[in-house]
Structure formats: structure tokens, C-alpha cells
């Protein structure tokens, strides 16, 4: 019996011995390992909006590696959209992804030919989306169907978003383009990250003086603006409204909210992955920046007026 007790005690002591090799904490271990490279834009955003930068990387991954449109079409659309707004970084990303998908530079240029309907659509979406006619859209819809067309619109909307970030941040294309990150960030990661504190918003007291508006919007002042909104209310949707059962993956509360907003209903119904990744980035930014809503929606109004988007 004594021998048995001694054996158990010895075994317990043996288990309590230090590990043969030190096992550092997770964060320490990561310092010693080569982390995957991050693109310049993500590094720039991470200094102010670290959690948003993570969501943007996930969104970027979706569009570049697992787009419902396929890698080849996604790269072609991005190339034309970035070319239209002179985003060299955006074009470099598209060329990198096109090469990985087996698409040559010549094929990209051929797609951008104004005679190619989808290439012409992509260019118009980048430069003046309001100028796309119902007839142009209908002819593409007959070929591609609503699901793909909504996906194409979201891919080009993402390009419009991302190219503006790249151009405003002044990011130059990397000598060796950075491949998609290929990872997601879990809740623990987000919990451990702190967002830098913001400066107080400046005093918004008016300063009498000359106006600094830099446009001529006289064409729509007075009564014409409400007319444009009324016209937009009567517009027929260019794709059929997706049936409600397409939103079966959502909770009841989310579905009810989504059904009220045409933007969300069409996007979630036809392209839930693209829409979900976009909303995740957008919601993260809103939570992280906590910026005054009157101020941001005033900027939204100016952007919609500039784009002549009356929705």
C-alpha cells in the first residue's frame, strides 16, 4: 500500500515539473514569428481605426479570394473601376489578382474596351453611376440574371469605396503587392484592441465670411430637389425584389428591419455574403469612431448630391 502511495506522489510531483522548453504567452510568441505582411492602406487605417482595419481586411479578402462572382470577373471589374478613377494602387491589386486567376494584362485591357457591355458598365459605375440607363441595365440583366448583377454592383461599390480610401490616404502601390491576408479575427482579438482617443470635435460656431462652396448646384435648387426625390419614390426597381424566404437566414428582428429598407432587402436577398461583410465593416467603423450623426449625415447628403443619388 505504502509503495502505491509513494508511486502516486512521485507521479504528481513529476507532473508539476516545469516544461522542458519555455512556452511564452501568445502575444510574446507572435512577436517572434513572421507576421503576414499587411498592405499599406491597412497599416494606415489601423493607427486610427484598428478594429475597422481588421474588418476591412476581411471584406477585402472576400472580394479578392471568395467573391461569388469568381476571381477572374472580380479582378476584371476592379481593374476597370480603378482605372476609371486613376487609382494606381487599385489597379495593382486587380492585376495581382488577375494574374493569380490566369487573366493576362491584355485580357484586362480587352475587357475595358467600351464595346464590351460589362466593362462599359463598370466604368460608368465608377464615374457616374446615375448615368446608367434602364436599357443598359436590362440588357446586362438578361445575360447575367439578378443575383450576379447585384453582385457586380456590390463589387463595383466596394471598388468605389476602397479606391477613395487609397487615393485619400495617398498610398502608393507596393513593389510586391500584398496577397489577401487570408485570416479572420475572433471576438477575443477585438476585445484586446483599444481604439485611440479622438480629439474633441471643433467648435461648430459659424464664422461669417465668404462661402467656400466649390460647385454649381443651381440646376437643382428650389422646387426641383423635392421633385427628384418624388421621382425616385416612383422608380421601378431594376431587379425583381427577392422573395422573403431568401432572408430566412436572418433573425426575425433583422429580417423585419431589412424588409423595410430596399437597399438592404435587395442586397441581403441576392448577395448576403458581400452585404454581410460590408455591414460588418461599416458597423465596426461606426462603433469605433462614435462620430456625431448630424455631422456625418450632412457629409452623406453632400456625397449624394455630388453623385446625383436621390435614393
Amino acid at each position, binding site marked *: 500500500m505504502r509503495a502505491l502511495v509513494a508511486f502516486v506522489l512521485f507521479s504528481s510531483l513529476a507532473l508539476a515539473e516545469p516544461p522542458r522548453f519555455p512556452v511564452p504567452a501568445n502575444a510574446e510568441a507572435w512577436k517572434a514569428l513572421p507576421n503576414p505582411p499587411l498592405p499599406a492602406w491597412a497599416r494606415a487605417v489601423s*493607427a*486610427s*481605426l484598428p478594429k475597422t482595419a481588421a474588418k476591412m481586411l476581411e471584406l477585402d479578402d472576400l472580394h479578392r479570394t471568395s467573391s461569388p462572382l469568381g476571381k477572374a470577373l472580380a479582378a476584371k471589374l476592379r481593374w476597370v473601376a480603378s482605372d476609371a*478613377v486613376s*487609382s494606381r494602387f487599385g489597379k495593382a491589386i486587380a492585376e495581382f489578382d488577375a494574374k493569380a486567376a490566369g487573366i493576362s494584362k491584355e485580357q484586362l485591357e480587352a475587357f475595358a474596351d467600351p464595346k464590351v457591355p460589362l466593362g462599359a458598365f463598370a466604368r460608368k*459605375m465608377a464615374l457616374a*453611376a446615375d448615368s446608367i440607363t*434602364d436599357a443598359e*441595365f436590362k440588357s446586362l440583366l438578361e445575360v447575367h440574371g439578378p443575383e450576379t448583377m447585384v453582385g457586380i*454592383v456590390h463589387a*463595383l*461599390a*466596394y471598388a*468605389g*469605396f476602397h479606391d*477613395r*480610401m487609397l*487615393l*485619400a*490616404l495617398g498610398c502608393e502601390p507596393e513593389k510586391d503587392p500584398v496577397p489577401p491576408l487570408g485570416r479572420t479575427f475572433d471576438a477575443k482579438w477585438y476585445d484586446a484592441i483599444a481604439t*485611440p482617443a*479622438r*480629439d474633441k470635435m*471643433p467648435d*461648430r*460656431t459659424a*464664422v461669417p465670411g465668404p*462661402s*467656400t*462652396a466649390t460647385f454649381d448646384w443651381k440646376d437643382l*435648387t428650389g422646387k426641383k*430637389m423635392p421633385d427628384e*426625390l418624388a421621382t*425616385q*419614390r416612383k*422608380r*421601378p426597381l431594376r*431587379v425583381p425584389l427577392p422573395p422573403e424566404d431568401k432572408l430566412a437566414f436572418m433573425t426575425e428582428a433583422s429580417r423585419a428591419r431589412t424588409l423595410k*429598407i430596399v*437597399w438592404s432587402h*435587395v442586397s441581403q436577398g441576392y448577395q448576403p455574403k458581400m452585404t454581410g461583410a*460590408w455591414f460588418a465593416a*461599416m458597423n465596426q*467603423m461606426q462603433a469605433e*469612431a462614435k*462620430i456625431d*450623426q*448630424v455631422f456625418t449625415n*450632412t*457629409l*452623406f*447628403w*453632400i*456625397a*449624394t448630391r*455630388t*453623385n446625383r*443619388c*436621390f*435614393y
Partner: protein
Amino acid sequence: MGHSEMLLAVAGLDDEQVRKLTAMLARGEWSAFSKEDQIAFRFTHKLTGQPASITDADVKELIAAYGRHRAMDIIWYVSWCNYMTRVGDGLQLPLESTNVFGPAPKKEKP
């Protein structure tokens, strides 16, 4: 545009305030706003309409007015607006007839 007006209402402006604000913006009467607001408005207009023409001076001016982090917030937000409008315009979504973002939050009485 319809949605931005709905969201201004959700943010707390009443109908008359939304109408006055957007009428001033549309007419270019920006002198009624602060210097910093006008900088943000100009930046929004330029990044939306001519993104490749954004210069170092434009960004420096934005940072001087708002600080580095808030300037990043503004750049992100304006780019976000351009995602939303491309979907709205590309699909020509019909504008809803009521405020789909819900009523303005009730202000608590002091």
C-alpha cells in the same frame, strides 16, 4: 439623398431643420457653417467627385481642422457614402415613402 435626410431626422433634427440645412448646402451658403465644417464639406465633395485630385494640402487641411484620427474617420465615412450611393444608383432603388430608419430618439426632459 432621401436616406441622408431620413438619417438627419433620426440624428435629432426636425423636418424644418432638415429642410433649412439641406437648402443652405444646396445653394452653397456655406458661410453659415464653421470653418472646420466647410473644410469637411469641400473635402467630401472633392473625394466623391474627383477622388484622384485629392492633394497632400487637402489632407493636411483636414488633419489641421480635426486631428489625425478624426480626419481618418471622415475619409472612411465619405468613402462609405460612395459605396452606398453606387448600389442606390446602379440598381436605381425606389426611395421608401416613410423614414425606414425609425423615429428620432425622444429627448429626455431635464
